């Protein structure tokens, strides 16, 4: 592109051929007011507020609209001459004669020193700038809006004044209407690149602040491009050209030598335990919700507040919600006592609230845990031995008391207690994921009645499973805290590495063998093998077992009607001898 030399308000600059004055001025930081300009569309010069004075070296001069006046060699632009300001004032006054003094016009009027427009104010709020029509046409691609009528009757409308079927409800028109003539009530949602945001909801967002990976994602059901094929603004502005609308979810297959199952847990939902009022009283929250609130990235910025935004004056932390409970999970979730104590510590650090811990047994079993418990006691946290029985609204409360009444039996003093608090934190159980059984089936590992995966041996093979090469790490195998998880994960990784680093695997000596001399190729065994280890040799007319695939279940051995298949280490003779011996 050839460069063109121009001068704007005394700044000499080079602009690319074909650019307009407005763009060139922006490059050197000179703002020219405008109402109907949008950088990704063809300029339209409807509002005419962007009037500037163009001159050449020979003294020729003309007031032009900056948004659609292309630069030429030797152009001098003046944005602030009395002539320019007069033109702008005149144009603005004409706009105001149609429109109410909406904020954007009022501000311009103030800037230009208009106190009382000569022709008074109009009654409309639309200034017929056409930004909405053009954005719907050029960017969104929905073509749902148009100008109707002519002259003084000109208006923005949908074709034939009917509800448009082409409108995709993206809200771009409302967002870019300079005067607020077009409204869309629900303008919320996170705004990422606000200068690109066409509608009320950003179709590209980062899920939350600490998301991993911390990159934006396109919500295909909100993305205008996905609906109309237009827009693509994000792709146009992305300097690295990262955005590809054609990208699809892809299934990738990997050959792996080992699998580590670390599918974790899900949080127990305390809603069914009506006595705690979770979901009913806004300030009864679960531990994970409290943890979220506590995080610096939370909407509260890490402040501990109640629903009304005020700091709680007292907090009850209820242990064992859903765990150690005959009706829900019988097991101990192992992590709750300690995180509940941590919560207490965080609360004392951040607020001056009174804290009540209601526990069944304080299980501070780990290294340094008991010491931490002592420290919490020293910090003045009230610990009450007795499980929280129920949470009800406080009646006849004093002004300094909380809205929620926690009832419990304090078993150390054998007294029934009622504690009014502002906030209740429920330490919910860790439970196996709903879909754990799918994983178990897929990987052929076993799962206990409580949903945790079962290790090959509780003492001797705590990270292995009954399937070779599949290892367990973390809570999917049973409730455990972070140090234990890290230790187990390390062990699982080491086991996997052990397999991989060898480069070869040791096979179990137990597998099935077909003795060729006895096989008559009846094919009864062929479909019995779940590992497709048995195949039929068309040449020899017999079946054969691929010993590398065989897992030694022996189903084919039991089925082989001619006794040609032998299960090594579980032969018929061995089993008959065992039966005879054991019953003798």
């Amino acid at each position, binding site marked *: 592109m050839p460069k063109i030399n121009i001068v704007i308000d005394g700044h000499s600059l080079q602009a690319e051929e074909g650019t307009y004055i407005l763009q060139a001025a922006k490059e050197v930081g000179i703002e020219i007011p405008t109402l109907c300009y949008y950088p990704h569309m063809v300029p339209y010069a409807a509002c005419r507020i962007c009037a500037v004075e163009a001159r050449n070296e020979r003294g020729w001069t003309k007031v032009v609209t900056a948004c659609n006046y292309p630069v030429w060699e030797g152009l001098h632009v003046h944005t602030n001459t009395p002539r320019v300001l007069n033109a702008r004032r005149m144009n603005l006054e004409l706009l105001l004669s149609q429109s109410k003094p909406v904020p954007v016009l009022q501000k311009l009027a103030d800037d230009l020193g208009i106190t009382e427009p000569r022709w008074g104010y109009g009654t409309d709020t639309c200034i017929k700038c056409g930004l909405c029509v053009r954005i719907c046409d050029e960017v969104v691609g929905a073509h749902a809006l148009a100008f109707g009528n002519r002259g003084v009757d000109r208006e923005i409308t949908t074709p034939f004044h009917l509800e448009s079927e082409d409108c995709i409800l993206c809200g771009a028109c409302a967002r870019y209407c300079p005067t607020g003539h077009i409204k869309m009530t629900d303008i919320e949602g996170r705004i990422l690149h606000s200068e690109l945001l066409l509608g009320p909801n950003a179709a590209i967002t980062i899920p939350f602040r600490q998301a991993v990976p911390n990159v934006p994602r396109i919500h295909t059901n909100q993305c205008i491009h996905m609906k109309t094929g237009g827009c693509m603004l994000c792709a146009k502005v992305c300097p690295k050209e990262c955005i590809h609308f054609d990208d699809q979810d892809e299934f990738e297959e990997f050959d792996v030598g080992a699998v580590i199952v670390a599918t974790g847990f899900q949080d127990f939902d305390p809603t069914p335990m009506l006595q705690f009022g979770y979901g009913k009283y806004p300030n009864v929250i679960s531990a994970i919700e409290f943890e979220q609130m506590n995080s610096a990235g939370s909407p509260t910025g890490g402040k501990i507040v109640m629903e009304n935004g005020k700091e709680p004056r007292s907090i009850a932390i209820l242990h064992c919600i859903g765990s150690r409970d005959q009706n829900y999970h019988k097991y101990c979730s192992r992590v709750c006592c300690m995180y509940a104590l941590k919560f207490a510590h965080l609360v004392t650090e951040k607020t001056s609230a009174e804290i009540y811990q209601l526990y069944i047994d304080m299980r501070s079993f780990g290294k340094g845990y008991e010491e931490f418990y002592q420290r919490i006691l020293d910090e003045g946290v009230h610990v009450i031995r007795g499980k929280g029985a129920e949470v009800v609204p406080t009646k006849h409360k004093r002004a300094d008391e909380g809205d929620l009444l926690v009832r419990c039996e304090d078993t150390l003093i054998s007294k029934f207690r009622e504690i009014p608090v502002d906030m209740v934190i429920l330490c919910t159980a860790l439970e196996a994921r709903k879909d754990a059984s799918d994983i178990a089936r897929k990987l052929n590992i076993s799962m206990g009645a409580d949903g945790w995966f079962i290790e090959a041996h509780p003492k001797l093979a705590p990270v292995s499973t009954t399937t070779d090469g599949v290892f367990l790490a973390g809570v999917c195998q049973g409730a455990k805290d972070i140090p234990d998880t890290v230790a187990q994960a390390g062990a699982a990784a080491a086991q996997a590495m052990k397999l991989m680093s060898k480069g070869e695997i040791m096979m179990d000596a137990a597998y099935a063998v077909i003795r060729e001399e*006895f096989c*008559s190729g009846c*094919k009864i065994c062929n479909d019995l093998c779940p590992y497709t280890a048995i195949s039929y040799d068309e040449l020899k007319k017999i079946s054969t077992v691929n010993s590398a695939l065989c897992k030694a279940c022996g189903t084919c051995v039991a089925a082989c*009607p*001619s*006794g040609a298949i032998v299960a090594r280490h579980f032969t*018929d003779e061995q089993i008959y001898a065992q039966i005879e011996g054991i019953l003798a």
Partner: protein
Amino acid sequence: MTKPKLAVYWAASCGGCDIAILDIEDKILDVANFFDLAFWPCIADFKYADVEAMPDKSITLTLFNGAIRSDENFHIAKLLRQKSVVLCAFGSCASDGCIPGLANFYDKQSIMEYAYIKSPSTDNPNGVMPQPKTKVPEGEITIPYLWNTVRTLPQVVDVDYIIPGCPPQSNQIAAVVEAVIDILSNSKPLPPKGTVLGATDKSCCDECKRERNIKKITKFVRPFEIIPDPNLCLMEQGMVCLGPATRSGCGAKCVSANVPCRGCYGKPINIHDQGAKMVSALASVIDSTDPEEIEQIIGQIVDPAGTFYRFSLPDSILRRAQV
């Protein structure tokens, strides 16, 4: 030079085995030339006393057909063992029990009652039963005493070789005869004791010409219920074919004639129980994972025990029904 002596005896059997020996056509002349017939009640008159009078091990080869189900059978089995160098269990009755062995589904009393009193064709209003000993003017006469349980020959005496089949196929007998003559005339070593002659180590499927696919059975049928595809495995067509759990050697004659194998050649060498193995194999390929449907499908098999143990009940693990 004296010829080697041959004995052929029938115990509890139908006589088919003797006929099968004669079915070897012109080879029978070789037999007659090579052997001296020491004892063959089916074709010539011999007295037990003649055999008793022979010196021990004076008979070179005894082909013993028939199961052991009476004192008489047992006595002759012992006698021939004593007098023979080589004793062969000849045919399915001697080796597996065969059809006479089906008596093991009942006890002796109910068999006797049915045979002499209850059967529709019997007219015995006084309920006269055969007596082992009867006094007649000439003295006391006896008839053989019937056992409660039918036994196979190897269960009661030491047997050298087994030639299975009901009856053993003529071509197999001819081959055995040829081999025996060859061994004896050229002083070759005998095959190891316990060898099964006239059959192979594989199962009937080995000789079956039908096309076999992956088996998935959803319905059992009896042979008269369908017109089977002549080229497709009968089991795949829903028939209870015992071929897979039956020793080969017969040439798969029945299956070639669209009749499922009934298992007369007995169990292959490596299995313990023909019936149980057939149950295992057949049930494995039933195409269902629903317990009720499985019950319904296996319910279509008529008389499973009788079908699976048609030829081998006395040779099975439990040897007889528990009655």
